[in-house]
């Protein structure tokens, strides 16, 4: 085991760096630029039961130290992901991949996860509960402890793979959601998803994004991520994957000190396609600078 290695829900990672869902496609696109086996793993594009085109454009707005996106879960649907995207990924990535799943009903989550459960390439299911519940008045599953728990129970019933619930920060009390997911059987939690944001064009006086609002991400949200990872990691016993604005090796250490067992890198990949690899490469020297022998020693090490 190397000094960067960590364990995530019983599956070993060579290092804790995980490109986040929606910023890394299905992986093989980035394999054109570098050998993606240098990563701990990555979380593939949010996948739903049925194919989705997503929202109208513009889907992107620039912000200070970040961006808003309202892509709307564009993906080819789970059957095509299994039939076409995973075989392409197998050509260039030889580690277990994290399968990111979204749904608009409890049944949809379960059906999608049941299909992915049969795929040996999938090491973890990362269940995004930030989507609107079409049977619950459109309110996000992730803002209500009971709704989030119902998704977790349904997914756990159809899979033996570790289930990591990706939590929304757009809640009053993230700890209560986290505890509800843990009690429902979640094997891990990942946070934070994007913060709901909005921009308005001064010339047209219209929202910049066609969907009006979208998910705010990038370095600007990093302090929110540190705070929420700290709160959640100190309230649950299951591992927490930290994310939110991570762009440097130092950010990885900070989130791990706050309580993250592994760290996802999102928006940084969109500005610099080599960002995740550069963070992996930079980690040993940065660890030396802070007197860290093994990364796993610093998890939740904040004093």
């Amino acid at each position, binding site marked *: 085991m190397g000094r960067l290695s960590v364990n995530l829900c019983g599956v070993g990672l060579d290092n804790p760096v995980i490109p986040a869902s*929606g*910023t*890394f*496609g299905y992986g093989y*696109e*980035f394999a*054109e*630029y570098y050998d993606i086996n240098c990563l701990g793993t990555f979380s593939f*594009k949010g996948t739903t039961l049925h194919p989705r*085109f*997503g929202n*109208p*454009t*513009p*889907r*992107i*707005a*620039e*912000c*200070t*130290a*970040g*961006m808003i*996106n309202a*892509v709307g879960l*564009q993906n080819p649907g789970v059957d095509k992901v299994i039939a076409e995207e995973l075989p392409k990924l197998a050509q260039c990535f030889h580690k277990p991949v994290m399968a990111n799943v979204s749904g608009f009903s409890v049944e949809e989550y379960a059906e999608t996860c049941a299909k992915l459960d049969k795929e040996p390439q999938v090491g973890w299911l990362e269940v995004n509960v930030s989507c609107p519940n079409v049977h619950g008045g459109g309110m996000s599953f992730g803002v209500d402890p009971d709704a989030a728990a119902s998704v977790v129970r349904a997914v756990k019933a159809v899979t033996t793979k570790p289930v990591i619930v990706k939590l929304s920060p757009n809640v009053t009390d993230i700890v209560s959601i986290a505890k509800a997911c843990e009690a429902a059987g979640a094997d891990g939690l990942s946070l934070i998803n994007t913060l709901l944001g909005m921009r308005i064009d001064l010339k047209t006086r219209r929202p910049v994004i066609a969907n009006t609002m979208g998910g705010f991400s*990038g370095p600007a949200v990093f302090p929110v991520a540190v705070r929420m990872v700290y709160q959640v990691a100190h309230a649950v016993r299951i591992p927490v994957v930290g994310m939110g604005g991570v762009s440097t090796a130092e950010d990885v250490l900070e989130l791990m000190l706050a309580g993250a067992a592994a760290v996802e890198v999102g928006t940084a*990949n*969109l*500005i*610099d*396609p*080599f960002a995740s690899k550069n963070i992996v490469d930079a980690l040993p020297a940065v660890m030396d600078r802070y007197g860290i022998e093994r990364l796993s020693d610093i998890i939740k090490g904040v004093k």
Partner: protein
Amino acid sequence: MKQVILTVTDNRPLTKDVFLMRLTGDMSAVTAPGQFVNLKLDGLFLRRPISVCDVQDDTLTLIYKVVGKGTAQMAALRPGETLNVLTGLGNGYDADIPANDVVLLGGGVGVPPLYLLCKTLLGQGKHVHVILGFNTKDELFFENEFRMLGADVTVTTVDGSYGVRGFVTDALPDRYDYFYSCGPEPMLRAVYRATNTSGQFSFEERMGCGFGACMGCSCKTVTGYKRICKDGPVLKKEEILWDA
């Protein structure tokens, strides 16, 4: 795609708000006319995608209009300054077509990517007729540059202050076997309606990454969903689905 550091060697106005910038460095990733580059500018989060006007050896020519913070910052760059640039983005124009009489239609800052395309087509011995459309005479640029390549050039202005009064579609020749276009979407729609052969269109969309990862610039086509940045920006006439 490559991530390279380029050095500004020239940056000057062509009109009141349109600038020409030349940069030198590794251009090996640029493989087709109509591709674009994505520039990282200090203090701005997202990169700025700009179409490639020309590439010769290790020199890149960009032409851009100052429309906001990013392009204003570009206009202030001085020779010797360096930029982190992703090069060779997008599919670019397919210049390998079975036609000999080709029309290029460019509107405003849609004109620049047609320059390298024009060079490429003329190099294949094709006859190239370039129609450059502007609102008014003061906005005109690159008429002589296209003429010096050896193309037939017609300029149109909406107000009639120079060349043919009207839009690029008002100057379409009677006979041609293929066309290429780049410009604002209303112009592209007009070109789509006015042309009677196959052709290619270069589209613009607000982008996140510029290299196919974020799905920020997707559009629907006859052949499925496409990313303007990676599967485009050039689409063939036959695959275009216009939004209602």
